[in-house]
C-alpha cells in the first residue's frame, strides 16, 4: 500500500433490507485531497461516509482507513454530521459541544491543553465570542461552524463533512471554503453534498455517486457524468462569479 493513501475502498456493497444503497464502490482518497462527492438525495453519500467511519458495516467489499480497519483508523478522522440531526434544546453550550471532539477515554477528564485546543478551534471558525452560549440561541450557520470546530479540534488527518454548506449563507460560504482550503494543507478533506452549487472553484476533485460511483476525477471532466448520476440535465455555470463552479478560462 502506498503511504499517502488515507482511505481505500474496494468493491464495497451496502444494502438496507436488501435494497441496494451502494454497489461496487471503489475509491481511494489520498493525503491532501480535496474531494467533493455529489449526487442526488438518497444516492448513498451519507452511507458512504458512515462506512468510512465504521458506523455501518458493508455487506461486501474491503475498506481500509489509514491502513487499519475503520473502527481503529477513525480516531484520525474529524467528522461533521448533518446539523439537522440535532435537538437544539438539548442542555449544552457551544464550548461543551466542541470539547467533545477531544474525548480521550472513559472517566478521563479534559486537560488544560484540551480546553486550549477547543478555544483555538472556536477562534478558527470565528465563533469564540459565542463560547458560553446555549446552542438553541445559534443560527443554522453558526451551529454548523460550531460542529466544524468540534470536527477539527482533534487535529485529524482526514475531514469528512456531510452537507457542510447547508444553511450557510452565500457570504459565509466563501469564508468557509477559505477555511477548508487552509485546513487542506494539513489534512485530506472529503465533503458530500446534493447541491452542485456548493462545488466551488476550490474543489480539486469531484466524485459522482448515485448508488454506483459514476465518476471520480478532476471536476472539469465531470460534466457529462453528473447527468448520468442525477439522471437529469445539469447546467454548470462557467461564467460569472456568484455561482462559479469551473475555474476561469485561461486565455
Amino acid at each position, binding site marked *: 500500500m502506498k503511504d499517502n493513501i488515507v482511505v481505500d475502498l474496494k468493491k464495497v456493497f451496502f444494502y438496507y433490507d436488501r435494497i441496494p444503497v451502494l454497489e461496487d464502490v471503489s475509491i481511494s482518497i489520498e493525503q491532501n485531497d480535496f474531494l467533493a462527492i455529489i449526487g442526488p438525495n438518497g444516492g448513498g453519500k451519507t452511507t458512504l461516509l*458512515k462506512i468510512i*467511519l*465504521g*458506523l455501518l458495516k458493508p455487506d461486501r467489499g474491503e475498506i481500509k482507513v489509514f491502513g487499519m480497519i475503520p473502527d481503529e483508523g*477513525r*480516531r484520525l*478522522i474529524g*467528522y461533521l*454530521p448533518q446539523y439537522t*440531526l*440535532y*435537538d437544539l434544546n*438539548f*442542555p*449544552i*453550550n457551544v464550548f461543551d*459541544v466542541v470539547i*467533545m*471532539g477531544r*474525548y*480521550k*477515554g*472513559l*472517566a478521563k*477528564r*479534559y486537560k488544560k491543553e484540551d480546553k486550549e485546543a477547543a478555544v483555538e478551534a472556536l477562534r478558527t471558525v470565528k465563533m469564540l465570542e459565542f463560547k458560553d452560549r*446555549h446552542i*438553541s440561541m445559534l443560527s443554522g450557520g453558526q451551529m454548523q461552524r460550531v460542529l466544524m470546530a*468540534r470536527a477539527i479540534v*482533534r487535529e485529524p488527518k482526514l475531514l469528512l463533512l456531510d452537507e457542510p454548506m447547508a444553511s450557510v449563507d452565500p457570504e459565509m460560504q466563501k469564508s468557509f471554503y477559505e477555511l477548508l482550503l487552509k485546513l487542506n494543507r494539513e489534512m485530506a478533506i472529503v465533503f458530500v453534498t446534493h447541491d452542485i452549487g456548493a462545488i466551488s472553484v476550490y474543489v480539486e476533485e469531484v466524485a459522482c455517486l448515485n448508488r454506483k460511483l459514476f465518476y471520480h476525477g478532476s471536476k472539469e471532466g465531470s460534466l457529462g457524468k453528473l447527468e448520468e448520476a442525477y439522471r437529469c440535465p445539469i447546467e454548470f455555470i462557467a461564467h460569472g462569479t456568484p455561482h462559479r463552479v469551473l475555474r476561469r478560462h485561461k486565455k
Partner: protein
Amino acid sequence: MEILHYEFMRNALAAAVLVNIACGIVGTYVVIKRMVFISGGISHATFGGIGLGYFLGINPILAAIPFSILCALGIGIISKRTKVSEDTAIGIFWAVGMALGIIFINLTPGYAPNLFSYLFGNILTIPSFDLIIMLILDAVIIITVVLFHKEFSAMSFDEEFTTVVGVPNRILYLLLLCMIALSVVVMIRIVGIILVIALLTIPAAISRQFTYNITKLMFLSIFVGAVLTVGGLWLSYILNLASGATIILLLGAGFFISLFLKYLISLRRRRSVKTMKSNY
C-alpha cells in the same frame, strides 16, 4: 409538627428525599435523551420481580432489583442488536413482565399482602429496611454518574459522533438503562409501579424550562421533586387521600404552573426588549 413524632412519618419524609435524589439524576437523562417510554417499559416489567418476591417468600423489593435490571438489559440488547424496533421491544417486555408478576402471585399460596402498595405506592408504610435499600441504590447511582457524566451527556447529545471519537456507547447505554431500573425500584414504594414514570420525568421536565446546564438541571430536579413529594404527602394527610396519586397530581399541577411561569417570563422579556427599543 406533631405528625413528625410518628416513625412512619419520619420514614416517609426520608423516603421522599431519597427517592428524589435518584429521580432527579436519572430523570434528567430520561428527559433529555427522550427515554420516557423505555422507562415506562422497565417499570411495568419490574412487576414480574415483585411477583417473584412473593413467590419465593423474600422481600419483593430485593427480588425486583435483579429482575428490573435484566428487563432493562433485555430491552436494550434486543432493540440495538436485532431488527426489532425499540418501541416493539419495550411493549413486549412491558406486558410480559406484568403477566409474569400476575402468574407468580397466582402460584403463591394464600393472598398477597401489600400488593396494592407496590402497584400504587404507599409512602406511609415504608419500613426502615427499605430505606436502607434506597440509600444504597442512591449511592450506586451517584457514583456512576460522577464517573460517567461526561460520557452520558455527550452520548445523549450525539450518539454517532461520540462513537467515532471512541466513547463506548453501547455499554454506556445499557448502564444508563440499568440506572433507570435501579431508580424504578427505589420509586416503587413511593408511588407504585403504575405511577413511577411521572415521578421520574415531571421534576426534570419542570426544571428543564429554567436551566440549560445539566448539573444544575439535576440539582433543581432533586429539589423540585422533593418539595412536591413532601407537599403531596402533606396534602394527602390533611385531605385523607391516597398518597401516591396525590403526589403525582401535585407534580402534574407543578408542571402546568411551570409552563405558565415560563410563558410569563418570555412575555416579560419580549416586553422589556420592546421598551428598550422604544426608549431608543
